[in-house]
Protein backbone atom coordinates (compact mmCIF):
# COMPACT_ATOMS: atom_id res chain seq x y z
CA UNK A 1 0.00 0.00 0.00
CA UNK A 2 1.20 3.50 -0.78
CA UNK A 3 -0.01 6.60 0.94
CA UNK A 4 -1.45 9.29 -1.26
CA UNK A 5 -2.17 12.80 -0.16
CA UNK A 6 -5.45 14.12 -1.45
CA UNK A 7 -6.27 17.71 -2.33
CA UNK A 8 -7.35 18.53 1.22
CA UNK A 9 -4.10 17.19 2.62
CA UNK A 10 -5.58 14.11 4.23
CA UNK A 11 -3.79 10.83 3.68
CA UNK A 12 -5.87 8.42 1.63
CA UNK A 13 -4.64 4.88 1.20
CA UNK A 14 -4.23 3.84 -2.42
CA UNK A 15 -3.86 0.30 -3.53
CA UNK A 16 -0.58 -0.59 -5.22
CA UNK A 17 -2.58 -1.84 -8.16
CA UNK A 18 -4.30 1.55 -8.42
CA UNK A 19 -0.93 3.27 -8.33
CA UNK A 20 0.40 0.99 -11.03
CA UNK A 21 -2.67 1.46 -13.22
CA UNK A 22 -2.45 5.23 -12.84
CA UNK A 23 1.27 5.21 -13.60
CA UNK A 24 0.72 3.27 -16.82
CA UNK A 25 -2.17 5.46 -17.87
CA UNK A 26 -0.12 8.55 -17.15
CA UNK A 27 2.75 7.24 -19.27
CA UNK A 28 0.34 6.62 -22.15
CA UNK A 29 -1.28 10.05 -21.87
CA UNK A 30 2.15 11.61 -21.67
CA UNK A 31 3.39 9.84 -24.79
CA UNK A 32 0.37 11.04 -26.72
CA UNK A 33 0.14 14.57 -25.33
CA UNK A 34 3.64 15.59 -24.22
CA UNK A 35 4.50 17.69 -27.27
CA UNK A 36 1.24 19.61 -27.03
CA UNK A 37 1.57 20.05 -23.27
CA UNK A 38 5.16 21.30 -23.43
CA UNK A 39 4.35 23.50 -26.42
CA UNK A 40 1.38 25.07 -24.65
CA UNK A 41 3.37 25.61 -21.48
CA UNK A 42 6.31 27.07 -23.37
CA UNK A 43 4.00 29.63 -24.90
CA UNK A 44 2.61 30.30 -21.41
CA UNK A 45 5.93 30.74 -19.54
CA UNK A 46 8.20 31.63 -22.45
CA UNK A 47 10.92 29.09 -21.71
CA UNK A 48 11.08 25.47 -22.80
CA UNK A 49 13.18 24.42 -19.81
CA UNK A 50 10.76 25.86 -17.31
CA UNK A 51 7.84 24.41 -19.29
CA UNK A 52 9.37 20.97 -19.04
CA UNK A 53 10.02 21.33 -15.30
CA UNK A 54 6.42 22.40 -14.74
CA UNK A 55 5.17 19.46 -16.76
CA UNK A 56 7.30 17.12 -14.66
CA UNK A 57 5.78 18.58 -11.49
CA UNK A 58 2.31 18.06 -12.94
CA UNK A 59 3.22 14.44 -13.64
CA UNK A 60 4.22 13.95 -10.01
CA UNK A 61 0.93 15.50 -8.97
CA UNK A 62 -0.89 13.09 -11.28
CA UNK A 63 0.91 10.18 -9.65
CA UNK A 64 -0.45 11.36 -6.31
CA UNK A 65 -4.00 12.08 -7.40
CA UNK A 66 -4.88 9.69 -10.21
CA UNK A 67 -4.61 6.49 -8.15
CA UNK A 68 -7.20 7.90 -5.74
CA UNK A 69 -9.44 10.00 -7.93
CA UNK A 70 -9.16 7.97 -11.10
CA UNK A 71 -7.65 8.88 -14.44
CA UNK A 72 -9.30 12.08 -15.71
CA UNK A 73 -11.19 11.97 -18.96
CA UNK A 74 -8.81 14.42 -20.60
CA UNK A 75 -5.45 13.68 -19.03
CA UNK A 76 -3.54 16.10 -21.25
CA UNK A 77 -5.76 19.01 -20.27
CA UNK A 78 -5.49 18.01 -16.61
CA UNK A 79 -1.69 18.01 -16.72
CA UNK A 80 -1.56 21.32 -18.57
CA UNK A 81 -3.90 23.01 -16.12
CA UNK A 82 -1.96 21.76 -13.09
CA UNK A 83 1.32 22.90 -14.63
CA UNK A 84 -0.11 26.33 -15.45
CA UNK A 85 -1.39 26.68 -11.88
CA UNK A 86 2.08 25.82 -10.60
CA UNK A 87 3.58 28.48 -12.85
CA UNK A 88 1.16 31.07 -11.54
CA UNK A 89 1.86 30.04 -7.94
CA UNK A 90 5.56 30.47 -8.59
CA UNK A 91 5.10 33.95 -10.03
CA UNK A 92 2.90 34.90 -7.12
CA UNK A 93 5.51 33.79 -4.63
CA UNK A 94 8.18 35.81 -6.37
CA UNK A 95 6.26 38.87 -7.42
CA UNK A 96 3.58 39.11 -4.75
CA UNK A 97 0.06 39.40 -6.02
CA UNK A 98 0.72 41.02 -9.33
CA UNK A 99 -2.52 41.89 -11.11
CA UNK A 100 -1.25 40.37 -14.36
CA UNK A 101 -0.75 36.95 -12.79
CA UNK A 102 -4.05 37.16 -11.02
CA UNK A 103 -5.65 37.77 -14.41
CA UNK A 104 -3.84 34.78 -15.88
CA UNK A 105 -5.07 32.66 -13.02
CA UNK A 106 -8.64 33.84 -13.64
CA UNK A 107 -8.25 33.04 -17.35
CA UNK A 108 -7.02 29.60 -16.45
CA UNK A 109 -10.03 28.95 -14.24
CA UNK A 110 -12.32 30.20 -16.97
CA UNK A 111 -10.55 27.96 -19.47
CA UNK A 112 -11.00 24.95 -17.21
CA UNK A 113 -14.68 25.70 -16.66
CA UNK A 114 -15.46 26.00 -20.34
CA UNK A 115 -13.09 23.29 -21.56
CA UNK A 116 -15.21 20.67 -23.29
CA UNK A 117 -14.08 17.80 -25.48
CA UNK A 118 -11.95 20.10 -27.61
CA UNK A 119 -9.40 21.43 -25.21
CA UNK A 120 -6.84 22.31 -27.84
CA UNK A 121 -7.22 24.70 -30.70
CA UNK A 122 -5.72 22.47 -33.41
CA UNK A 123 -4.17 25.24 -35.49
CA UNK A 124 -2.49 27.02 -32.59
CA UNK A 125 -1.28 23.73 -31.20
CA UNK A 126 0.18 22.64 -34.52
CA UNK A 127 2.10 25.90 -34.71
CA UNK A 128 3.28 25.56 -31.12
CA UNK A 129 4.44 21.98 -31.58
CA UNK A 130 6.28 22.97 -34.75
CA UNK A 131 8.04 25.76 -32.83
CA UNK A 132 8.92 23.22 -30.17
CA UNK A 133 10.52 20.95 -32.78
CA UNK A 134 12.70 23.83 -33.99
CA UNK A 135 13.68 24.77 -30.45
CA UNK A 136 14.70 21.19 -29.66
CA UNK A 137 16.89 21.11 -32.78
CA UNK A 138 18.29 24.62 -32.35
CA UNK A 139 21.88 25.09 -33.63
CA UNK A 140 23.16 26.36 -30.27
CA UNK A 141 22.80 22.78 -29.06
CA UNK A 142 25.19 19.95 -29.79
CA UNK A 143 23.83 17.17 -31.96
CA UNK A 144 23.66 14.86 -28.94
CA UNK A 145 21.69 17.46 -27.01
CA UNK A 146 19.34 17.97 -29.97
CA UNK A 147 18.65 14.26 -30.10
CA UNK A 148 18.06 13.94 -26.36
CA UNK A 149 15.85 17.01 -26.21
CA UNK A 150 13.80 15.99 -29.25
CA UNK A 151 13.10 12.58 -27.79
CA UNK A 152 12.33 14.09 -24.40
CA UNK A 153 10.18 17.12 -25.11
CA UNK A 154 8.73 16.26 -28.51
CA UNK A 155 8.61 12.48 -28.23
CA UNK A 156 7.74 12.29 -24.55
CA UNK A 157 10.38 9.68 -23.74
CA UNK A 158 11.77 9.50 -20.22
CA UNK A 159 15.48 9.87 -19.51
CA UNK A 160 15.52 6.13 -18.81
CA UNK A 161 14.02 5.33 -22.20
CA UNK A 162 16.44 7.63 -24.01
CA UNK A 163 19.38 6.18 -22.10
CA UNK A 164 18.26 2.68 -23.03
CA UNK A 165 17.92 3.68 -26.67
CA UNK A 166 21.43 5.11 -26.83
CA UNK A 167 23.04 2.67 -24.43
CA UNK A 168 24.46 5.34 -22.16
CA UNK A 169 23.93 5.84 -18.43
CA UNK A 170 20.71 7.59 -17.35
CA UNK A 171 22.78 10.24 -15.56
CA UNK A 172 24.46 11.14 -18.86
CA UNK A 173 21.12 11.73 -20.54
CA UNK A 174 19.79 13.72 -17.60
CA UNK A 175 22.91 15.85 -17.69
CA UNK A 176 22.57 16.42 -21.43
CA UNK A 177 18.97 17.52 -21.02
CA UNK A 178 19.69 19.84 -18.12
CA UNK A 179 22.61 21.39 -19.96
CA UNK A 180 20.59 21.70 -23.17
CA UNK A 181 17.82 23.54 -21.36
CA UNK A 182 20.36 25.89 -19.75
CA UNK A 183 22.00 26.49 -23.11
CA UNK A 184 18.66 27.39 -24.68
CA UNK A 185 17.86 29.76 -21.82
CA UNK A 186 21.33 31.37 -21.88
CA UNK A 187 21.15 31.88 -25.64
CA UNK A 188 17.68 33.34 -25.19
CA UNK A 189 16.36 31.07 -27.92
CA UNK A 190 12.99 32.33 -29.08
CA UNK A 191 9.97 30.04 -29.25
CA UNK A 192 9.39 30.49 -32.97
CA UNK A 193 9.71 28.98 -36.39
CA UNK A 194 13.00 30.17 -37.97
CA UNK A 195 13.17 33.18 -40.27
CA UNK A 196 12.72 32.41 -43.98
CA UNK A 197 16.45 32.79 -44.71
CA UNK A 198 17.35 30.23 -42.02
CA UNK A 199 14.44 27.91 -42.63
CA UNK A 200 16.01 25.42 -45.02
CA UNK A 201 19.10 24.94 -42.88
CA UNK A 202 17.11 24.56 -39.67
CA UNK A 203 14.69 22.13 -41.28
CA UNK A 204 17.66 20.12 -42.50
CA UNK A 205 18.92 19.97 -38.95
CA UNK A 206 15.54 18.75 -37.65
CA UNK A 207 15.35 16.03 -40.27
CA UNK A 208 18.91 14.87 -39.70
CA UNK A 209 18.25 14.59 -35.96
CA UNK A 210 15.30 12.31 -36.72
CA UNK A 211 17.38 10.34 -39.21
CA UNK A 212 20.17 9.86 -36.66
CA UNK A 213 17.65 8.55 -34.16
CA UNK A 214 16.28 6.17 -36.78
CA UNK A 215 19.76 4.94 -37.64
CA UNK A 216 20.50 4.33 -33.98
CA UNK A 217 17.81 1.66 -34.15
CA UNK A 218 18.66 0.51 -37.65
CA UNK A 219 22.42 0.25 -37.16
CA UNK A 220 23.20 0.69 -33.46
CA UNK A 221 26.56 2.36 -32.93
CA UNK A 222 27.20 0.25 -29.85
CA UNK A 223 25.72 -2.59 -27.87
CA UNK A 224 24.85 -6.11 -28.68
CA UNK A 225 21.84 -5.96 -30.96
CA UNK A 226 21.87 -5.77 -34.71
CA UNK A 227 18.62 -3.83 -34.91
CA UNK A 228 16.51 -2.16 -32.27
CA UNK A 229 13.16 -1.59 -33.95
CA UNK A 230 11.67 0.36 -31.03
CA UNK A 231 14.19 3.19 -31.46
CA UNK A 232 13.54 3.34 -35.18
CA UNK A 233 9.79 3.16 -34.62
CA UNK A 234 9.94 6.22 -32.39
CA UNK A 235 12.02 8.11 -34.99
CA UNK A 236 9.51 7.15 -37.66
CA UNK A 237 6.62 8.30 -35.50
CA UNK A 238 8.33 11.66 -34.92
CA UNK A 239 9.14 11.98 -38.62
CA UNK A 240 5.48 11.35 -39.49
CA UNK A 241 4.55 13.96 -36.91
CA UNK A 242 6.96 16.53 -38.34
CA UNK A 243 5.86 15.74 -41.90
CA UNK A 244 2.28 16.28 -40.75
CA UNK A 245 3.24 19.65 -39.29
CA UNK A 246 5.10 20.61 -42.48
CA UNK A 247 2.93 19.18 -45.25
CA UNK A 248 4.56 21.42 -47.87
CA UNK A 249 8.12 20.25 -47.23
CA UNK A 250 9.13 17.52 -49.70
CA UNK A 251 12.20 16.49 -47.69
CA UNK A 252 10.12 15.87 -44.57
CA UNK A 253 7.78 13.59 -46.57
CA UNK A 254 10.80 11.97 -48.24
CA UNK A 255 12.43 11.21 -44.92
CA UNK A 256 9.27 9.42 -43.83
CA UNK A 257 9.36 7.44 -47.08
CA UNK A 258 13.03 6.53 -46.60
CA UNK A 259 12.40 5.32 -43.05
CA UNK A 260 9.31 3.32 -44.08
CA UNK A 261 11.27 1.52 -46.81
CA UNK A 262 14.16 0.68 -44.49
CA UNK A 263 11.90 -0.37 -41.64
CA UNK A 264 9.93 -2.64 -43.99
CA UNK A 265 13.04 -4.83 -44.22
CA UNK A 266 13.76 -5.06 -40.49
CA UNK A 267 12.53 -8.63 -40.17
CA UNK A 268 14.85 -9.96 -42.85
CA UNK A 269 18.13 -8.19 -42.20
CA UNK A 270 19.60 -10.70 -39.80
CA UNK A 271 19.65 -14.49 -39.54
CA UNK A 272 18.69 -16.44 -36.42
CA UNK A 273 22.36 -16.88 -35.53
CA UNK A 274 22.96 -13.14 -35.75
CA UNK A 275 24.60 -13.06 -39.15
CA UNK A 276 23.50 -10.00 -41.11
CA UNK A 277 21.83 -10.98 -44.37
CA UNK A 278 22.75 -8.95 -47.47
CA UNK A 279 19.97 -7.46 -49.54
CA UNK A 280 20.15 -9.94 -52.41
CA UNK A 281 19.77 -12.87 -50.01
CA UNK A 282 16.91 -11.45 -47.93
CA UNK A 283 13.53 -13.20 -47.95
CA UNK A 284 11.49 -10.59 -49.78
CA UNK A 285 8.24 -12.34 -48.97
CA UNK A 286 8.76 -11.21 -45.39
CA UNK A 287 9.18 -7.54 -46.23
CA UNK A 288 6.34 -5.50 -44.78
CA UNK A 289 4.24 -4.70 -47.85
CA UNK A 290 1.94 -2.32 -45.99
CA UNK A 291 4.97 -0.38 -44.80
CA UNK A 292 6.40 -0.24 -48.32
CA UNK A 293 3.07 1.09 -49.56
CA UNK A 294 3.15 3.77 -46.85
CA UNK A 295 6.65 4.68 -48.02
CA UNK A 296 5.50 4.95 -51.64
CA UNK A 297 2.56 7.10 -50.57
CA UNK A 298 4.89 9.42 -48.65
CA UNK A 299 7.28 9.69 -51.61
CA UNK A 300 4.34 10.41 -53.92
CA UNK A 301 3.24 13.17 -51.53
CA UNK A 302 6.75 14.63 -51.67
CA UNK A 303 6.70 14.57 -55.47
CA UNK A 304 3.26 16.17 -55.64
CA UNK A 305 4.66 19.24 -53.87
CA UNK A 306 6.61 19.71 -57.08
CA UNK A 307 9.95 21.05 -55.90
CA UNK A 308 12.04 18.11 -57.06
CA UNK A 309 13.92 15.56 -55.02
CA UNK A 310 16.75 16.47 -52.69
CA UNK A 311 18.94 14.18 -50.59
CA UNK A 312 16.25 12.26 -48.69
CA UNK A 313 14.05 12.16 -51.77
CA UNK A 314 16.82 10.53 -53.82
CA UNK A 315 17.74 8.09 -51.05
CA UNK A 316 14.08 7.19 -50.67
CA UNK A 317 13.80 6.67 -54.42
CA UNK A 318 16.77 4.27 -54.31
CA UNK A 319 15.24 2.42 -51.36
CA UNK A 320 11.95 2.26 -53.28
CA UNK A 321 13.67 0.59 -56.25
CA UNK A 322 14.86 -2.16 -53.92
CA UNK A 323 11.55 -2.37 -52.07
CA UNK A 324 9.43 -2.94 -55.17
CA UNK A 325 11.76 -5.35 -56.97
CA UNK A 326 10.57 -8.97 -56.78
CA UNK A 327 14.19 -10.21 -56.78
CA UNK A 328 17.68 -8.67 -56.62
CA UNK A 329 18.15 -9.43 -60.34
CA UNK A 330 14.86 -7.76 -61.25
CA UNK A 331 15.91 -4.54 -59.54
CA UNK A 332 16.01 -1.49 -61.80
CA UNK A 333 19.77 -1.05 -61.39
CA UNK A 334 20.07 1.43 -64.24
CA UNK A 335 17.66 3.72 -62.43
CA UNK A 336 19.58 3.27 -59.18
CA UNK A 337 22.80 4.29 -60.96
CA UNK A 338 21.12 7.49 -62.17
CA UNK A 339 19.73 8.20 -58.71
CA UNK A 340 23.18 7.72 -57.15
CA UNK A 341 24.63 10.09 -59.75
CA UNK A 342 22.08 12.73 -58.77
CA UNK A 343 22.74 12.08 -55.09
CA UNK A 344 26.49 12.34 -55.66
CA UNK A 345 26.02 15.76 -57.21
CA UNK A 346 23.95 17.27 -54.39
CA UNK A 347 25.61 15.37 -51.53
CA UNK A 348 29.07 14.27 -52.69
CA UNK A 349 30.56 11.48 -50.61
CA UNK A 350 33.02 8.68 -51.34
CA UNK A 351 30.58 6.18 -49.82
CA UNK A 352 27.88 7.30 -52.27
CA UNK A 353 30.47 6.83 -55.04
CA UNK A 354 31.21 3.31 -53.87
CA UNK A 355 27.50 2.50 -53.73
CA UNK A 356 27.11 3.87 -57.24
CA UNK A 357 29.92 1.57 -58.38
CA UNK A 358 28.07 -1.44 -56.90
CA UNK A 359 24.92 -0.39 -58.77
CA UNK A 360 26.92 0.10 -61.99
CA UNK A 361 28.31 -3.42 -61.61
CA UNK A 362 24.77 -4.78 -61.35
CA UNK A 363 23.55 -2.65 -64.23
CA UNK A 364 26.32 -2.70 -66.85
CA UNK A 365 28.83 -5.18 -65.51
CA UNK A 366 31.98 -5.29 -63.39
CA UNK A 367 34.43 -3.67 -65.86
CA UNK A 368 32.90 -0.19 -65.84
CA UNK A 369 32.31 -0.43 -62.09
CA UNK A 370 35.98 -1.32 -61.55
CA UNK A 371 37.06 1.91 -63.26
CA UNK A 372 34.96 3.89 -60.77
CA UNK A 373 36.39 1.97 -57.83
CA UNK A 374 39.94 2.45 -59.13
CA UNK A 375 39.33 6.20 -59.33
CA UNK A 376 38.08 6.15 -55.77
CA UNK A 377 41.12 4.23 -54.63
CA UNK A 378 43.51 6.64 -56.33
CA UNK A 379 41.73 9.58 -54.65
CA UNK A 380 42.64 8.04 -51.28
CA UNK A 381 39.34 9.22 -49.83
CA UNK A 382 38.41 5.79 -48.51
CA UNK A 383 41.87 4.74 -47.32
CA UNK A 384 41.71 2.19 -44.55
CA UNK A 385 38.04 1.50 -45.27
CA UNK A 386 37.32 -2.23 -45.55
CA UNK A 387 34.41 -1.68 -47.93
CA UNK A 388 36.63 -0.44 -50.74
CA UNK A 389 38.87 -3.53 -51.17
CA UNK A 390 35.85 -5.77 -50.49
CA UNK A 391 33.93 -4.30 -53.43
CA UNK A 392 37.09 -4.19 -55.56
CA UNK A 393 37.80 -7.84 -54.77
CA UNK A 394 34.25 -8.79 -55.70
CA UNK A 395 34.51 -6.99 -59.05
CA UNK A 396 37.92 -8.50 -59.86
CA UNK A 397 36.59 -11.96 -59.05
CA UNK A 398 33.67 -11.42 -61.41
CA UNK A 399 36.18 -10.42 -64.10
CA UNK A 400 38.11 -13.63 -63.50
CA UNK A 401 41.17 -11.80 -62.14
CA UNK A 402 41.27 -14.18 -59.19
CA UNK A 403 44.80 -13.58 -57.99
CA UNK A 404 44.23 -9.83 -57.62
CA UNK A 405 40.76 -10.44 -56.20
CA UNK A 406 42.21 -12.66 -53.50
CA UNK A 407 44.66 -9.94 -52.46
CA UNK A 408 41.87 -7.37 -52.21
CA UNK A 409 39.60 -9.66 -50.21
CA UNK A 410 42.44 -10.44 -47.84
CA UNK A 411 43.19 -6.78 -47.25
CA UNK A 412 39.47 -6.16 -46.68
CA UNK A 413 39.59 -8.98 -44.12
CA UNK A 414 42.50 -7.27 -42.36
CA UNK A 415 40.66 -3.95 -42.26
CA UNK A 416 37.29 -5.09 -40.99
CA UNK A 417 36.60 -5.08 -37.27
CA UNK A 418 33.99 -7.80 -37.50
CA UNK A 419 34.87 -11.46 -37.05
CA UNK A 420 31.99 -12.79 -39.10
CA UNK A 421 32.76 -10.44 -41.94
CA UNK A 422 36.45 -11.37 -41.77
CA UNK A 423 35.64 -15.07 -41.92
CA UNK A 424 33.35 -14.57 -44.90
CA UNK A 425 35.96 -12.52 -46.78
CA UNK A 426 38.73 -15.03 -46.08
CA UNK A 427 36.51 -17.92 -47.14
CA UNK A 428 35.78 -16.15 -50.40
CA UNK A 429 39.48 -15.40 -50.91
CA UNK A 430 40.41 -19.00 -50.19
CA UNK A 431 37.80 -20.19 -52.69
CA UNK A 432 39.41 -18.02 -55.36
CA UNK A 433 42.86 -19.25 -54.37
CA UNK A 434 41.91 -22.87 -55.00
CA UNK A 435 40.48 -21.96 -58.39
CA UNK A 436 43.78 -20.42 -59.44
CA UNK A 437 46.04 -23.20 -58.22
Amino acid at each position, binding site marked *: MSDVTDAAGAVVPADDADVDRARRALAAVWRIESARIIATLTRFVGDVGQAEDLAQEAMLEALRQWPVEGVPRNGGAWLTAVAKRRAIDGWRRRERLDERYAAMARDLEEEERTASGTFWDPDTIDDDVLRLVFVACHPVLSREAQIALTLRIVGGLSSEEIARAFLVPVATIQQRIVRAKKTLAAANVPFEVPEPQDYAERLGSVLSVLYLIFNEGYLPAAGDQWVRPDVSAEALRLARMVAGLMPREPEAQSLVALMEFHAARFATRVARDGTPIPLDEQDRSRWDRAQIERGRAALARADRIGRGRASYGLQAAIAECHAVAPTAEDTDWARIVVLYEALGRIAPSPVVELNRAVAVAMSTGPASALRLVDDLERSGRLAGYAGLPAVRGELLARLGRNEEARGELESAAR*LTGNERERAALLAKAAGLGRAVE
Partner: protein
Amino acid sequence: MKYMLIMRDSEEAIEASKDLDFEEIIAAMGRYNESLIKAGVLLAGEGLAPVEEGFVVDFDATPPVVTDGPYAEAKELFNGFWIIGVSSKEEAIEWAKRCPLGPGTKLEVRRVNELEDFPQDNEWIQKEAQWRADAEGRLGSSS
Protein backbone atom coordinates in the same frame (compact mmCIF):
# COMPACT_ATOMS: atom_id res chain seq x y z
CA MET B 1 3.90 -2.52 -31.14
CA LYS B 2 0.93 -2.59 -33.44
CA TYR B 3 -2.68 -2.80 -32.40
CA MET B 4 -5.79 -3.30 -34.49
CA LEU B 5 -8.88 -1.43 -33.39
CA ILE B 6 -11.87 -3.33 -34.70
CA MET B 7 -15.19 -1.52 -34.80
CA ARG B 8 -18.18 -3.71 -34.00
CA ASP B 9 -21.66 -2.31 -34.39
CA SER B 10 -24.92 -3.90 -33.32
CA GLU B 11 -27.88 -3.87 -35.72
CA GLU B 12 -29.62 -1.54 -33.29
CA ALA B 13 -26.71 0.91 -33.26
CA ILE B 14 -26.66 0.98 -37.05
CA GLU B 15 -30.43 1.59 -37.16
CA ALA B 16 -30.12 4.32 -34.53
CA SER B 17 -27.24 5.98 -36.36
CA LYS B 18 -29.51 6.54 -39.37
CA ASP B 19 -31.28 9.24 -37.34
CA LEU B 20 -28.03 11.01 -36.50
CA ASP B 21 -26.48 13.82 -38.48
CA PHE B 22 -24.23 12.10 -40.98
CA GLU B 23 -22.06 15.21 -41.36
CA GLU B 24 -21.51 15.25 -37.63
CA ILE B 25 -20.46 11.59 -37.55
CA ILE B 26 -18.07 12.08 -40.46
CA ALA B 27 -16.59 15.19 -38.84
CA ALA B 28 -16.05 13.48 -35.48
CA MET B 29 -14.40 10.51 -37.17
CA GLY B 30 -12.32 12.85 -39.30
CA ARG B 31 -11.05 14.68 -36.23
CA TYR B 32 -10.19 11.39 -34.58
CA ASN B 33 -8.32 10.14 -37.65
CA GLU B 34 -6.51 13.45 -37.92
CA SER B 35 -5.36 13.21 -34.30
CA LEU B 36 -3.96 9.73 -35.02
CA ILE B 37 -2.17 11.01 -38.11
CA LYS B 38 -0.83 14.08 -36.32
CA ALA B 39 0.58 11.88 -33.57
CA GLY B 40 2.27 9.73 -36.20
CA VAL B 41 0.64 6.52 -35.00
CA LEU B 42 -1.89 5.69 -37.72
CA LEU B 43 -0.61 2.86 -39.92
CA ALA B 44 -3.82 1.86 -41.69
CA GLY B 45 -7.55 2.19 -41.38
CA GLU B 46 -10.60 1.47 -43.47
CA GLY B 47 -14.35 1.51 -43.12
CA LEU B 48 -16.32 -1.37 -44.59
CA ALA B 49 -19.17 -1.17 -47.09
CA PRO B 50 -22.69 -2.29 -46.00
CA VAL B 51 -23.03 -5.93 -45.03
CA GLU B 52 -25.46 -6.48 -47.93
CA GLU B 53 -22.45 -6.29 -50.25
CA GLY B 54 -20.49 -8.85 -48.25
CA PHE B 55 -20.48 -12.63 -48.34
CA VAL B 56 -19.32 -15.48 -46.15
CA VAL B 57 -17.30 -18.48 -47.23
CA ASP B 58 -18.10 -21.41 -44.95
CA PHE B 59 -15.47 -24.16 -44.78
CA ASP B 60 -17.67 -26.68 -42.98
CA ALA B 61 -18.51 -28.18 -46.33
CA THR B 62 -16.27 -29.30 -49.20
CA PRO B 63 -16.22 -27.40 -51.44
CA PRO B 64 -16.80 -24.34 -49.22
CA VAL B 65 -20.28 -22.79 -49.31
CA VAL B 66 -20.60 -19.13 -50.22
CA THR B 67 -23.50 -17.20 -48.65
CA ASP B 68 -24.31 -13.62 -49.60
CA GLY B 69 -24.98 -10.99 -46.94
CA PRO B 70 -26.76 -9.76 -44.95
CA TYR B 71 -26.11 -12.52 -42.41
CA ALA B 72 -29.14 -13.11 -40.23
CA GLU B 73 -27.21 -14.77 -37.40
CA ALA B 74 -24.69 -11.96 -36.83
CA LYS B 75 -25.37 -9.95 -33.65
CA GLU B 76 -22.39 -7.66 -34.12
CA LEU B 77 -20.94 -6.48 -37.37
CA PHE B 78 -17.31 -5.79 -38.10
CA ASN B 79 -17.60 -2.39 -39.73
CA GLY B 80 -14.15 -0.93 -39.91
CA PHE B 81 -10.67 -0.97 -38.46
CA TRP B 82 -7.59 1.03 -37.64
CA ILE B 83 -4.05 -0.23 -37.18
CA ILE B 84 -1.93 1.94 -34.95
CA GLY B 85 1.73 1.78 -33.93
CA VAL B 86 2.19 2.60 -30.26
CA SER B 87 4.69 2.02 -27.45
CA SER B 88 2.45 0.25 -24.95
CA LYS B 89 -0.88 -1.45 -24.37
CA GLU B 90 -1.93 1.54 -22.28
CA GLU B 91 -1.29 3.86 -25.20
CA ALA B 92 -3.50 1.65 -27.36
CA ILE B 93 -6.20 1.81 -24.66
CA GLU B 94 -5.89 5.60 -24.50
CA TRP B 95 -6.31 5.94 -28.27
CA ALA B 96 -9.17 3.44 -28.34
CA LYS B 97 -11.03 5.34 -25.62
CA ARG B 98 -10.84 8.50 -27.73
CA CYS B 99 -12.64 6.92 -30.66
CA PRO B 100 -15.93 8.79 -31.21
CA LEU B 101 -18.34 5.85 -31.08
CA GLY B 102 -21.78 5.69 -29.53
CA PRO B 103 -23.79 3.20 -27.48
CA GLY B 104 -24.37 -0.17 -29.10
CA THR B 105 -20.87 -0.08 -30.53
CA LYS B 106 -17.80 -1.89 -29.28
CA LEU B 107 -14.17 -1.51 -30.14
CA GLU B 108 -12.29 -4.78 -30.02
CA VAL B 109 -8.56 -4.17 -29.72
CA ARG B 110 -6.07 -6.84 -30.75
CA ARG B 111 -2.31 -6.72 -30.79
CA VAL B 112 -0.79 -7.50 -34.18
CA ASN B 113 1.95 -10.13 -34.20
CA GLU B 114 5.37 -8.79 -34.98
CA LEU B 115 8.91 -9.96 -35.50
CA GLU B 116 9.69 -10.10 -31.81
CA ASP B 117 6.81 -12.50 -31.23
CA PHE B 118 8.75 -15.18 -33.02
CA PRO B 119 11.33 -17.20 -31.10
CA GLN B 120 14.72 -15.56 -30.82
CA ASP B 121 17.61 -17.35 -29.28
CA ASN B 122 20.66 -15.71 -27.82
CA GLU B 123 22.67 -16.01 -30.99
CA TRP B 124 20.41 -13.31 -32.42
CA ILE B 125 22.49 -10.96 -30.37
CA GLN B 126 25.71 -9.68 -31.87
CA LYS B 127 28.59 -7.68 -30.54
CA GLU B 128 30.29 -6.41 -33.60
CA ALA B 129 29.63 -2.69 -33.64
CA GLN B 130 32.49 -1.83 -35.97
CA TRP B 131 31.38 -4.28 -38.58
CA ARG B 132 28.02 -2.58 -38.70
CA ALA B 133 29.60 0.75 -39.49
CA ASP B 134 31.64 -0.90 -42.23
CA ALA B 135 28.70 -2.82 -43.58
CA GLU B 136 26.66 0.35 -43.81
CA GLY B 137 29.37 1.97 -45.85
CA ARG B 138 30.01 -1.00 -48.10
CA LEU B 139 26.46 -2.08 -48.68
CA GLY B 140 24.88 1.34 -48.40
CA SER B 141 21.31 1.02 -49.49
CA SER B 142 21.79 -2.69 -49.93
CA SER B 143 21.65 -3.72 -46.28
